[in-house]
């Protein structure tokens, strides 16, 4: 799974800390999601998409194994 979180964070000038605090998760969670090492729940994906003013579809790119 790839994400566009890093790119959109940069667009809105948000650090991982800022994003984590806005959503109410730990900073490591954002780091792991960005690196594709953790697949978030639908609710968390939706919350991240909301903060980054996009949709879940736009934010996460699922690839076939």
């Amino acid at each position: 799974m790839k994400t566009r979180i890093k790119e959109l964070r940069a667009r809105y000038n948000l650090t991982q800390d800022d994003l984590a605090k806005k959503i109410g998760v730990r900073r490591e969670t954002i780091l792991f999601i960005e690196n594709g090492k953790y697949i978030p729940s639908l609710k968390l994906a939706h919350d991240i998409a909301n903060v980054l003013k996009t949709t879940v579809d736009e934010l996460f790119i699922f690839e076939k194994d």
Partner: protein
Amino acid sequence: MDDKTRFRRFIAIVAAVLVLGAIFVVWSGAASTDNWATMMSAVILVTMALVAIVVIRKGLKELRSGFPREDERSSAIKMRAGYLAFFVSLYLLLGMSFVHAMLEDNQVSSIPTSEWLMVYVAVMGSIFLIVNTYLNRKGVPG
């Protein structure tokens, strides 16, 4: 319940467990002539106290930083670590029971059940800590 209240409750439970553990160690040391079980429980208690100090210090730091102490990823890691620790130690307990029965059948002096249980608890706790630390660094698979 907010993070502060949850953390206070956690500290109270840890303190109660450590006090009860200390009473048990002192009581078993006074009541029994067998030093091995007392030594083992003292080692487990000291390890628990050290782990508690590390966890509480980390928790305080996290509370001050403004991040939640637990979120869906850390819960998933704890669940995975708990699941693994439970099943691995369950198999270990079955294996130990088998060895215990064999020793008794062959009339070899067997190790008392209380000492098996000490090892069981120590192994379960160690597996949980190792898997928890590993998944925290590497990420949750799947």
